């Protein structure tokens, strides 16, 4: 039975708003003013902004049609590895829209913002409990910003100890933004390779770790979806030379409630609320990248901090060793509300179950597609699994062709050509929120596509054919970008 969710249907073309604009068309009608006109000082006036002239229905149809061209986790499975595109429960939105929270003003002052401060304080406590750290800041705006915050704190720690260091160790299975964050702190990246089974070997770390090295940046689970099981030994090697261990917590969805990074030798770790804690991800809203630290790094956390005294909460700026402010006001508060709602509605057991199911689902995909797609590291995975196109290459079909064809079957493609350690990577992260039925549909689609790759490869070369726009010329777009409409 063909059980693919994708089908064809009528899709509307839609021009840009400027092309729909007609002089004099308007969406509102104001009553005639019964007050005498008074001229303003010419220094206060200028030309009106040049905006398209449209009625309400023009605007509603415009955005409704654009939304119909879109694909989101609300329309189908979005197994984009390393991104944790889990479903965002609607209760998160209900809580964030509550009048007292949505109407809170950042300049109201502590005494009129006690509820908001309490929420931030409690969320910090929850995240500290989940990760096993002593303190948490909610200020960074997203994951890479959290990385920068963490690296700035490592930099400040070494400066405070009286001797700055010049290098940082980054394995080839770390996230791509890691070297950039280290460079912004003035550290030179020392790249090391993972071992033959896809994880980091302590000997590789001890070979390069010295007293000029500030520490190591580890993504655990790593971007191959494998748990760095030598992490404790690696942390000991780094600590013995006075270095610190940065943990990239982007893959926390695999170990929440099972492993506390603060208890396995990691000194500082960022989380992505927009991955692990079900807040909108990518285009759906701003991110949030809280950072947890061990006691020794607490003085360096960004200000303002939220503190609790008896039953009142206050912002505290008097932290002389702080790396300073990283964001206007207090970070993305609206996202904190959503993550807080998620944690409260899931509870401790619910969060642990989410990780267990995320890992189970990824292993189910891995075992089901092993053989259909080549699996370079054939061992139990965490929340994501990485295949490649080695089998399909025999028919000159690439990962990109298969990814494009998945669109015709009604799925968002997985992450492709990342991580770089796997040639032609096809990286699937189903997340815990997909049911077995949806995952089976995905497995069916990939198997059907692999069959097409053997029998009718032109179907893949021409894909996608059922989408609003078909295969785009990405090469020309990148070589000769058209940056103006």
């Amino acid at each position, binding site marked *: 039975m063909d059980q693919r969710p994708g089908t064809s249907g009528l899709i509307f073309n839609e021009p840009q708003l400027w092309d729909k604009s007609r002089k004099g068309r308007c969406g509102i009608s104001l009553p005639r003013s019964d007050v005498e006109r008074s001229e303003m000082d010419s220094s206060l006036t200028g030309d009106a902004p040049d905006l398209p002239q449209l009625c309400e229905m023009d605007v509603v149809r415009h955005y409704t049609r654009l939304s119909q061209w879109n694909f989101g986790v609300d329309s189908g499975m979005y197994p984009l590895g390393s991104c944790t595109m889990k479903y965002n429960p609607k209760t998160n939105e209900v809580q964030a829209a509550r009048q007292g929270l949505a109407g809170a003003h950042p300049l109201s002052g502590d005494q009129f913002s006690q509820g908001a401060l309490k929420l931030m304080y409690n969320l910090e406590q929850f995240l500290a409990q989940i990760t096993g750290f002593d303190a948490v800041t909610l200020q960074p705006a997203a994951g890479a910003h959290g990385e920068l915050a963490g690296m700035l704190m490592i930099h400040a720690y070494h400066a405070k100890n009286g001797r700055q260091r010049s290098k940082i160790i980054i394995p080839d299975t770390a996230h791509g933004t890691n070297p950039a964050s280290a460079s912004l702190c003035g550290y030179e990246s020392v790249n090391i390779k993972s071992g033959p089974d896809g994880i980091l070997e302590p000997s590789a770390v001890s070979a390069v770790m010295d007293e000029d090295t500030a520490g190591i940046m580890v993504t655990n689970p790593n971007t191959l979806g494998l748990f760095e099981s030598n992490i404790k030994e690696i942390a000991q090697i780094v600590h013995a030379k006075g270095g610190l261990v940065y943990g990239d917590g982007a893959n926390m969805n695999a170990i929440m409630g099972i492993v506390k990074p603060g208890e396995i030798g990691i000194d500082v770790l960022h989380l992505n609320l927009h991955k692990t804690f079900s807040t909108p991800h990518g285009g759906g809203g701003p991110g949030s990248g809280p950072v947890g630290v061990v006691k020794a790094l607490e003085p360096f956390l960004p200000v303002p901090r939220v503190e609790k005294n008896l039953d009142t909460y206050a912002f505290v700026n008097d932290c002389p060793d702080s790396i300073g402010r990283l964001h206007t006001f207090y970070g993305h508060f609206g996202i904190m509300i959503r993550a807080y709602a998620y944690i409260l509605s899931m509870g401790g057991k619910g969060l642990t179950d989410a990780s267990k199911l995320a890992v189970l689902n990824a292993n189910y995909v891995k075992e089901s597609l092993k053989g259909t797609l080549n699996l370079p590291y054939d061992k139990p995975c965490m929340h994501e699994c990485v295949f490649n196109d080695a089998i399909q290459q025999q028919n000159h079909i690439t990962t990109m062709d298969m990814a494009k064809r998945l669109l015709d079957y009604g799925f968002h493609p997985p992450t492709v050509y990342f991580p770089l350690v796997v*040639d032609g990577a096809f990286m699937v992260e189903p997340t815990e929120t997909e049911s077995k039925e949806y995952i089976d549909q995905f497995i069916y689609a990939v198997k059907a596509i692999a069959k097409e790759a053997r029998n009718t490869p032109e179907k893949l070369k021409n894909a996608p054919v059922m989408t609003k726009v078909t295969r785009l010329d990405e*090469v020309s777009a990148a*070589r000769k970008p058209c940056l103006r409409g």
Partner: protein
Amino acid sequence: MKEINDLNLPDNLKYTDDHEWADTSGDVVTIGINDYAQDQLGEIVFVELPEVGDTFSKGDEFGSVESVKAVSEIYIPISGEVVGINEDLEDAPELVNESCYEGGWLIKVKPEDTAELDGLMDKAAYLAMLKG
């Protein structure tokens, strides 16, 4: 993608583990990425090069090539000073795909220590390395 036997690897050039080539016939060494590298990367959309006058030590990263798939660093086969860069690549990065040994060269380097050139591989040694 090409089979190893279909690769174009001129006999007069030297090669590195990282798939760069070096033309060592003159006083100034011309450097680029080889046919295997351009084929594996796929269609190249941007090439980042150093500036004339920059100096590098053997094995240093001196630039990057960006394809539709990924950004890859390129490493210098010998120590020395950059005395020329291929400015055509700014508007026509596809030259690296179309003509990696001629129009798609990357930089010209004045070597610091010509003895380093002996450490580079010839075609036979490079092919043996590729075949593993």
